[in-house]
């Protein structure tokens, strides 16, 4: 019996010592602890693709709500968000008033920007260009944020601990714009010229960064800087205007030579393009009457954009091809072309015109007009048709870039939003040009002030 007692004593000894707490140390097997992910070059690459992943969902529907929903090219029969935007009846519960996915992109970029340099010892082209992409994607997100809400919280560090300050208030948009510029300049200097294949347009290249810079300087009205960066895009051998016969393919198949940066989608990573524009009898948007009536005679693009045979077209063909007809409210796999050469050419035209360089402006404008089967314009003709050269360029952007998510920002940037939209939906206050901040964001953060127009 004594033996038994000894054994039990032994048992409890073993039980209480060796079975101590180290059996309770369990590290994740299929993911990583939040700190300490970035260790190798492939981690750095994966971290950057993770940013694109967030950006992809950001734009899948909002590129249209943000860029077209409040402007004059679209019309809608849809109650809910499309109608509220169109009627300028914005409220803080709109999906497009939410910045969640933009800040998710920013957060992932902040992780990458902080940790990637540590992965690579010393100077590394791979590391720098990855940081370049991350900074460009952060800049893109902040650029949308500033244009949509004005002042927004500026956060450039990743969140890694509950002890960090999480209730960040809004930062003056000038400071945010400074950060955007710094990020884009870094990207323009450090991103790769090209990757080869489809990645040239799916990822941020030097050309992509320059295209963003052009948009950025146009927004800031720094026209000579805009011209410089636009010139770099035009000099970039990767980009050329496609023939009008291939114009539809820019959107339907993607990866055209004209495309500078497009957001990739596929059968599982889908967007809402079909529901937005092409759902047979029930799409969110169809071309407004004003838009349909603004075509010049002989514009070859008109029938590529919508069904001209229909008196009241109920959908947009541009992104799915002429003759497209579908009743299915399901997601689609088209890429969303965010920046393309025609866009940059027209921005450059606008910049020249602003600086009084009308000839250069008309040259560029006519490049786009001629491709569309329209006649070249001189200053007098432009003024006769549209009032002035600036308006002629804007009109050209309206048609050429229709429904691609630029119109609203063009109107705001050029100060024409109220003039154009007032007759349509009564837009009259400058303070109304921004969106309200989503109520969830306000509710979660006591330091956030609603935009005054909506307060």
């Amino acid at each position, binding site marked *: 019996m004594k033996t038994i007692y000894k054994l039990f004593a032994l048992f409890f000894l073993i039980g209480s010592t060796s079975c101590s707490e180290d*059996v309770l140390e369990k590290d994740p097997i299929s993911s990583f602890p939040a700190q300490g992910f970035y260790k190798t070059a492939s981690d750095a690459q994966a971290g950057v693709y993770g940013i694109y992943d967030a950006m992809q969902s950001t734009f899948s529907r909002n590129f249209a709500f943000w860029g077209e929903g409040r402007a004059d090219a679209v019309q809608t029969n849809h*109650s809910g968000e499309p109608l509220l935007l169109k009627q300028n009846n914005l409220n803080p519960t709109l999906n497009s008033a939410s910045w969640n996915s933009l800040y998710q992109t920013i957060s992932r970029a902040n992780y990458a920007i902080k940790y990637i340099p540590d992965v690579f010892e010393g100077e590394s082209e791979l590391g720098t260009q990855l940081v370049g992409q991350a900074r460009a994607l952060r800049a893109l997100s902040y650029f949308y944020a500033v244009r949509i809400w004005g002042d927004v919280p500026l956060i450039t560090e990743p969140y890694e601990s509950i002890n960090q300050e999480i209730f960040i208030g809004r930062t003056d948009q000038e400071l945010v714009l400074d950060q955007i510029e710094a990020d884009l300049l870094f990207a323009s200097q450090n991103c790769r010229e090209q990757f080869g294949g489809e990645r040239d347009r799916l990822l941020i290249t030097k050309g992509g960064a320059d295209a963003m810079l052009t948009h950025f300087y146009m927004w800031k009205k720094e026209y000579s800087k805009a011209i410089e960066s636009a010139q770099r895009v035009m000099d970039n051998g990767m980009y050329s205007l496609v023939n009008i016969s291939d114009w539809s393919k820019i959107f339907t198949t993607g990866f055209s030579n004209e495309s500078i940066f497009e957001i990739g989608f596929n059968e599982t990573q889908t967007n809402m393009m079909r529901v937005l524009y092409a759902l047979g009898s029930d799409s969110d948007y169809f071309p407004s009457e004003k838009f349909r009536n603004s075509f010049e005679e002989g514009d070859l693009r008109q029938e590529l954009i919508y069904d001209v045979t229909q008196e009241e077209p109920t959908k947009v063909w541009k992104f799915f091809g002429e003759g497209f007809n579908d009743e299915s409210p399901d997601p689609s796999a088209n890429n969303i072309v965010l920046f393309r050469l025609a866009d940059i050419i027209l921005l450059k035209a606008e910049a020249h015109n602003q600086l009084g360089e009308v000839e250069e402006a008309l040259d560029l404008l006519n490049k786009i007009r001629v491709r569309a089967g329209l006649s070249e314009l001189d200053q007098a003709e432009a003024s006769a048709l549209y009032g002035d050269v600036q308006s002629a360029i804007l009109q050209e952007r309206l048609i050429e870039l229709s429904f691609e998510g630029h119109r609203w920002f063009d109107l705001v940037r050029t100060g024409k939003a109220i003039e154009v939209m007032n007759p349509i939906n009564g837009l009259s206050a400058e303070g109304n040009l921004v969106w309200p901040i989503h109520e969830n964001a306000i509710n979660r953060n006591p330091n956030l002030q609603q935009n005054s127009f909506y307060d």
Partner: protein
Amino acid sequence: MKRKDDHNFSRTTRKVSVFVLLPILLLFISNSVYSQERTITGVVMDASNNEPMLGVNVLLKGSSRGVSTDINGSYSINIESPSDVLQFSFMGYEPQEIVVGNQDQINVDLVPSADELEELVIVGYGVQKKRNLTGSVVSVGSEEIEQTNLQDPISIMQGRAPGVQVTSNSGAPGGGMSIRVRGASSLNAGNSPLYVIDGVPIESNSLSSLNGTENFGLNPLADINPRDIESIEVLKDAASTAIYGSRAANGVVMITTKRGSEGKAEISLEVSAGVSEITRKLSVLNASQYREVIIDSYQNMDNPVEPTTAVLDSLNPKNNGDVDWQEEVLRVAPQYKVDLAVRGGSEKVKYSWASSFLDQDGIILNSNFRRVTSRLNVDFEVSDRIRVGQSISYSNSHNNRINAAGRGNLSVVRELLIRPPSYSMYLPDGSLNGYQWGKRNPVGLAELATHTNKSNRIIGNEYVEIDIIEGLTFRSNLNLDLVTMKEDEFMPSSLDYRPGYNSGAVRAIHNLTWGTENYFSFQRQFGNDHNLGAVAGISYQDWIYERTGLDGMFFPSDDIRTLNAAGTISNQEVNIAGEHSMLSYFGRVSYDYMGKYLAEVNVRADGSSRFGKDQRFGYFPSASVGWRFSEEAFLSEFRGLSDGKLRFSAGQTGNEAIGNYTSQGEFAVGTNYLDYSGAAPTVMPNSGLTWETTTQYNAGMDLSFFNNRILFTADAYLKRTEDLLYNVPIPRTTGFGYITQNIGTIENKGVEFLLSTRNLTGDFKWSTDFNISSNRNVVKSLPEELLTNGYIQNGRYHILKEGLPIGTFYGWKFEGVYASDEDNVNGITNGALGKEFKGGDPIWDDLNGDNIIDEDDRQIIGDAQPDFFGGIANNFSYKNFSLNVFFQFSYGNDIYSEINHQRNSVVRYNNLSTNALDRWREQGDITDFPKPVRDDPMQSDSRIQSRWVEDGSYLKLKNVNLRYSVPRTVIEKIGMNSLDAYLTASNLITWTKYTGFDPDVNSYSGLRAGIDEGSYPQSRTIILGLKFGF
């Protein structure tokens, strides 16, 4: 997997091998212990009719040695000394204790007493006499289980156990159930109880759902055959659960399976067959009525347009049908079951082997559940002091789940109600019209799509038990629960809008839960009056789960559905593994003085790998006292009272059910950009995370009168859960939606009553069991910073708010329909800038009276928590007939019927309920059905609204069991011991105001109680069975 090696695992395995080897070693050493024995024999008779009694337990007191009497009432048992005491017990009879003395033969007459108080009740790490319980434990025995044809242990508790609320997530065979013991006590750390089968804590949470399309879950105990069960005990208060520590906050369900007893082998064969059908169908519009509504909806627009929609084109062959989809999809479904069991044993070896086969069709086309279970429980007496044994069960099931439920157009249940009748079944070429304008064909979904679940499960427990000195026993268990489950899904191109687009998915899980428990128990009487008991032990448990799976698309043909044929593999993120472990120490001391004053103390210390280093161990104590006042001299005059006891308990338990790695934060892989592999931070770390702690107080009273003909139990409890684990929303500017934190308090308080009466004895017997429970759930505190306008939105339909229960619906209050434009006298508008409501629009309660209907007019529109619930069973028997009639009820709970919303949503071109025939059509119409408007400009359709909140109270004739036992004199001639024939009917009648399929519905098993999104409907089942005993 560069950072993970097997180091950890092998380290723990080594440690565990010590646990395993030690008992085996001990076994060899103590084999030499010896003592003197002799054999006692005798016959046990029933005093009421002088017939020999079969199956009476004869136990050597103070040991676990026991035998049972055979068909002639005979027994034979070995004893050690003349001072040994034999205990004779049989359910429903007064037990007897006899000191052996010098007798070699002891004959006994047992008197029927119906003294349930002598029953043994399973508690954590031991058993206890009901008489001596100081905690709150409710028990469901095998007799009650036998009266049902339910195929899983959870459903059996519905209505039978006070304080235990069971609702159905799905009426599908093998479908999920929600179970709440004394209310929901957690916000998102899980509200399911801990299940312990024969001492093995089993895995349940990870089994409830494998993938996304079906969020209604599987029943985690679907692998357990109820016929194997001896008893189910639900431990409710802290005194009884604290010994399970950090997993016990939601109660503990102990399932004990049948074991063998000494005697000739008893063979039992039960065969049954039956049919199920839907309890009720719902009325829908026919094709022409449907078209009229659609036309109306166009004409009711602000700028009416000619309806041009293709939906109205009755010349289109896709669109000229008039199909009653319920008729096409629902069916009368057969089911069969065979149970075979052999139980018996010798003095040294006792065995119980049972197998079953179940083949159960569901009432939706093609749904089917097949299950084979087999179980072997063996106990060996190695020596006088050493016993070893095992319980091992294997089950294999094949569940053709079909996409019964879920959101969107993948759900058969939704489609059979909302797919317009005009959409034809077939196309002109004879093929199925699988997909049309956002609606899938429910027949196609049931028959052509694949959704099968196959599972294999082994639950095993091996033990060694050693008597060290008198009263002191050591027990070591090694247990495992191994589940492998595979789910295949396929959506053929015939059901998709894109030509040639099909998709498939496969998921497999391999979950291994294993553990070891080692403990000493001590039970001894000191003097004549003092009884002392104690338990002390240590346990380790480890969970390893692995999940593999792929999604694919573009299969060249719908006929090859395995993933090798997929043209594109679209998702492999599901290939993940995880691990979690727990190390615990536990102990108990119990004491009673003369069986009159009872006291017990429990404590458990749990360490979990899920929590941050600083917060790893939690301590869970409890204490309870009891006073059997009926033993007091001053009550001895009161003869009516047979037994009376007061109980009080207090204690703490915990809840650790959060993600395995939440405290460390996570950087997830699989956030891909197209085919480029990405990684992204997904969980923000919080190293300070710790348990939820539930403090519970319980006061109870047990009374029995008139020689136990009336038994009454009442319990009142207060249960307060603090440090709630909650995903606290934080500003999205951080890049994260939430941080998991310990916040807030929830309180549940309630009362439970159980009354059992033997109304008639004699030839015609009648007994009644009635129970009723009421629980009040209140969210006591939530951190200020989480609140939006004073509350937290919890999913689409619910809010969480201090002072309100979990399950509060929040939305706009529907007050009818404006008969005419002029009825909107105040010019109430839809939003500040919106239009005025007109005739035919809903009247919304303008809560703040500002004549604007907006977010501020939302209010509480219902509560999913019942005021009370329970059940009543009446048992009648006359000679060889017996009848059990069981009603179950729930009162005062609301249901948010999302399915009724869907059934009236003209915006989606859904088919409508026949209520739409009373819709508003022109100025002056008085009705409560608003006008249908194509684009829903006034948000009549999209609002969360009281129009869809219905009273979910019900009374259900849940079970009727009529049984005839063929007289023994007849069957003995043909060599049988017993033959029973029975008829069981379930869900026969339901009385309710609810207009959906069935009020026993709960689409989400989590916090979002009381939502009916269109679950698999309940069925009425009638079964005929025969049970043979040899």
